[in-house]
């Protein structure tokens, strides 16, 4: 059976070049980068080289990059790291932290926890495309505000937020600006200086690097409180022995991401546009997210009267890997908070399908999905008591 992977927003395969770069660090250059002997020094050199590769992708200095275990830890460190230094502001009238209603759970749940321990958090609503209002953001800022955390691009519907405007406002009001760039990295050019970003989260496995490693950029001079105590690695911000092969992989993935971004973006955009055009030919199918301000690899749909979990299972039977925001596929049996936030009714959110492309996808992959999908949708509609056309 033909197999088509279209769930690159969930994770990506490790690029061959990345894997080759990593391999020696498992059993040849295995020293602890913190050891001063020969074995350690070689490993340390690799870690520092990776730091430069990561920094270069977002136009930061290498000493502004902290390695973590992934996007979730990066988000936790950024938010808690700033909040814990501002404990005195708890219980204030104005918002301490401003975020959006469509953040990844790593940000959203961390913010909810900050609320539980006494911080005042403001969740900005989004419009039907998933965009925050810059004016609402500015209105929410008060003397009590110390952190804005808004994602660069949404992981479900792919909407790209007005990061430069947010950065400008944050700077004007002297508020720290964190952005979760996990989905945007490698697809959207990022310049932390131009966009006035103070903290930025990166994950390796979304950009053809290995799982279990990530990074957080933090602007020089910014103060953070650590959330994991130990041997004092990474300027005391993130203790724990370096995951050398993982860090080397992340570094290489960033280097390739930078050099190939232009080609990859053009390739994915071309395929995505065909995919959207073909899919929208299906009766009562709709595109979720913004028509233009969206990630080049993201196609997110909804179909009337069918349920997403059974849709992805049927696609799976045809060898196609996809995702949905349906309640039935979630651990909590609740419709996706993102789809709810853009104003979809629960029954509309149930019929959602996320197809996310990667650089490995081909035109044949897209044709195959376009060929298979209409039949599956009509099969499920025949089964549905809600479809009576």
């Amino acid at each position, binding site marked *: 059976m033909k197999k088509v992977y279209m769930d690159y927003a969930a994770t990506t395969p490790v690029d061959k070049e990345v894997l080759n770069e990593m391999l020696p660090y498992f059993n040849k250059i295995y020293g602890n980068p913190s050891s001063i002997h020969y074995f350690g020094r070689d490993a340390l050199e690799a870690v520092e080289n990776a730091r430069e590769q990561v920094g270069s992708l977002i136009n930061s200095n290498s000493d502004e990059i902290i390695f973590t275990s992934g996007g979730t830890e990066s988000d936790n460190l950024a938010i808690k790291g700033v909040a814990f230094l501002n404990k005195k502001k708890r219980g204030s009238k104005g918002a301490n932290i401003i975020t959006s209603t469509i953040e990844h759970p790593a940000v959203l749940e961390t913010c909810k926890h900050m609320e539980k321990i006494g911080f005042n958090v403001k969740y900005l609503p989004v419009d039907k495309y998933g965009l925050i209002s810059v004016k609402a953001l500015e209105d929410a800022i008060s003397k009590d505000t110390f952190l804005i955390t808004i994602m660069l691009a949404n992981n479900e519907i792919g909407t790209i937020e007005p990061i430069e405007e947010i950065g400008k406002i944050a700077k004007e009001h002297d508020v720290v600006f964190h952005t979760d760039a996990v989905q945007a990295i490698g697809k959207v050019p990022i310049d932390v200086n131009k966009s006035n970003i103070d903290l930025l989260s990166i994950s390796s496995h979304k950009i053809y690097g290995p799982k279990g490693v990530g990074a957080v950029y933090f602007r020089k001079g910014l103060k953070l409180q650590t959330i994991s105590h130990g041997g004092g690695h990474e300027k005391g911000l993130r203790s724990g022995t370096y995951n050398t092969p993982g860090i080397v992989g992340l570094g290489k993935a960033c280097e390739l991401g930078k050099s190939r971004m232009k080609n990859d973006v053009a390739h994915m955009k071309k395929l995505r546009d065909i995919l959207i055009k073909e899919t929208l030919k299906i009766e009562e199918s709709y595109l979720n997210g913004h028509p233009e301000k969206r990630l080049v690899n993201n196609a997110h749909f909804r179909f009337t009267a069918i349920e997403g979990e059974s849709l992805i299972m049927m696609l799976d039977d045809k060898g196609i890997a996809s995702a949905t925001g349906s309640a039935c596929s979630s651990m909590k049996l609740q419709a996706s908070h993102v789809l709810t936030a853009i104003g979809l009714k*629960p029954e509309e959110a149930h019929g959602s399908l996320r197809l996310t492309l990667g650089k490995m996808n081909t035109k044949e992959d897209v044709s195959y999905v376009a060929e298979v999908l209409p039949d599956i949708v009509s099969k499920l509609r025949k089964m549905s008591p809600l479809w009576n056309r």
Partner: protein
Amino acid sequence: MEQINEGFFMSDIYTEKVLDHFRNPRNMGEMKDPDGVGKVGNPTCGDVMAIYIKVKDERIVDIKFQTFGCTAAIASSSIATELVKGKTLDEAMKLSRDDVANELGGLPAIKMHCSNLASDALHEAIKDYRMKNKK
């Protein structure tokens, strides 16, 4: 301060029997002039099931279902129709929520409510028939 260990591991998967009924649903579709109809669930929660029955001499001679819902919901309705086709109404009323899940070889814990819907829809269809045919 925080509740811990409140989640669960994602080790529950669908059995082969669930997948078989999902891929090849039995008795699926609408029915013309059914003797009884049972419709349960609501689109907000993500599952809607409709069961249609034809009854002759207190026996279910034909049965069809339509389901808007996940894999487990579709498989549950399919197997429920198979289990009661040809049975008397009294026998069919005895089909319990657990029977549906057990016949499928079990369902992931989080999906157990789907099997409830299937037996509920069946019972509603029988009640509907009995209401219409009160002597």
